[in-house]
């Protein structure tokens, strides 16, 4: 299968008022109490361990799930674990209107798909994306499709460097290629 085209179940990160959660910081994603963990396989159970309403996420998520979050996702610390915990859970991608700079780099460098989504508020308000919808997307072209609803929307295509690293697998593999 073409690595650029992916499919998964949407998980929309809403708060108790049904609003998309913005500014989710790395201590809500992977709390500093667990920073001593260096083995990626052990990081999964702590994902969203400090995010109100989402603490059961590791139990409820499935392989390939696409997390849909509000703007400035991954604010705060430089911890790679805040990306790696999703890799451990086999989460397929994260869509958000924007990411913190460090978080975005960390994800790009470990080959984990983070993609900017446009007009998210309108999409959510219009029920264009609801948790459990099946989403298919192309990281190269930015085309995304809500398979469940038969509708289409746009994500920002990966930049050339992000795509090169994604295709190589991670920054290390990419680095060996360009040498």
């Amino acid at each position: 299968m073409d690595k650029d085209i992916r499919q998964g179940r949407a998980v929309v990160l809403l708060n108790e008022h049904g609003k998309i959660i913005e500014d989710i910081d790395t201590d809500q994603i992977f709390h500093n109490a667990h920073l001593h963990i260096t083995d990626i396989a052990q990081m999964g159970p702590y994902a969203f361990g400090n995010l109100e309403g989402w603490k059961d996420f590791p139990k409820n998520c499935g392989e390939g799930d696409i997390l849909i979050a509000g703007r400035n996702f991954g604010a705060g610390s430089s911890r790679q674990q805040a990306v790696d915990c999703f890799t451990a859970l086999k989460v397929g991608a994260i869509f958000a209107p924007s990411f913190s700079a460090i978080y975005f780099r960390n994800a790009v460098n470990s080959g984990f798909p983070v993609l900017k989504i446009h007009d998210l508020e309108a999409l959510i308000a219009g029920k264009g994306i609801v948790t459990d919808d099946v989403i298919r997307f192309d990281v190269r072209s930015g085309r995304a499709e809500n398979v469940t609803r038969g509708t289409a929307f746009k994500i920002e295509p990966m930049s050339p460097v992000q795509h090169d690293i994604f295709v190589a697998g991670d920054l290390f593999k990419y680095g060996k290629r360009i040498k």
Partner: protein
Amino acid sequence: MGRTIIEKIIQAHSRDDAAAGRIVWMDLDVRSARDFGGPNVVKNFEQEYGGAAPADPRKTFFTFDLCAPACSLKYADNQQACRDFARKHGIEVFDVDRGVGTHVMIEEGLARPSGTVVGTDSHMNILGAVGCFGQGMGDVDIAFAFKTGRTWFEVPESVKVVLKGRPSAAAEAKDLTLFLCRELGTKKIALRSAEFYGEAVRNLALSGRITLCSMITEMAGIIGFIPENGPIVADGDAAYADFIELDIDGLPPQIAVPPSPNTVRPLADLRGTRIDSGFIGSCTNGRTEDFARAAEILKGHKVKKRVMLKIVPATRRVYEEMLERGILETLFQSGAIVVNPGCGGCAEGHVGLTGKGETQISTGNRNFPGKQGKGQTYLAGPAVVAASCVAGEIAGPEDL
């Protein structure tokens, strides 16, 4: 076309055209890792490169500041793994006695004007205070930087922020910084470099510049610079993505209330809020000047009996200056707890966390839910924290 400060610094470290928006390969003058992130860097490095040496051990460092000395077996193991790696490759370790890595790099002259420094600390951009491009990165990035001495980077756009007027005499650098956290939020300089201009920042000493630059991360910016009276300036015809003018005339002390550093109100609104503990320190307010200000207020007073005040100098040199200037004695006599240098107080390190129901007032830079435990954290400058610990409630020095 002229260049902004960030464009100039990156250009001096790249063969690519470092215009804003371009993705370039950038040489790194200093590559570092802390006791948090460091063990993951070592693990990645050994997994990917086996026994190979780093590109240049003399430009590679470890700084242990998070849990110093180790307060858990896990941290003890992790620090030792970094030390073993460092010994094997001839890398210098600023060990658990030295303090906050970014501050040690400034003191040691490793963070130089126009330089590039990376490390596993999201407040690495504090180095903007000395005109250096510092950037926090994760352990994949840093392992790659150890090995290759470079990284890819998207040159950020710049925003010019001009501050008009003069803050009130009671306002410290932290109050100005918190005001900016409120006004700029997490959107106005997001993913951009900010250049601050105006009398209020022009006259800031290094400690105040550090305070301001340390919280650019909380404004979602890449880095902040204070060009006036600083070591590096932008070209007159540099291109800015935005221009923001803010009136700070008469600015009173400010406090960030839970749940974020961007929810900021004047001290007057919070006065009288009961507190259980206080903390003075962190990369934001851990300089000698910060403790001198606190000591000035605490002299002749006692920390209220039911309140604990925790004090963490940024570095061993700061600790020494506190000792020499009698600051340490004043703090001790007031009843404060003074511990060894480091990042304690901001994360789960060697200084306590807050318990459920506890209210803390802190000079740190983050008060996100659960960050320092289950309690509520308010952020303020050293003067307000010191006064509040005497009063047992949020207060300014004038209330004592």
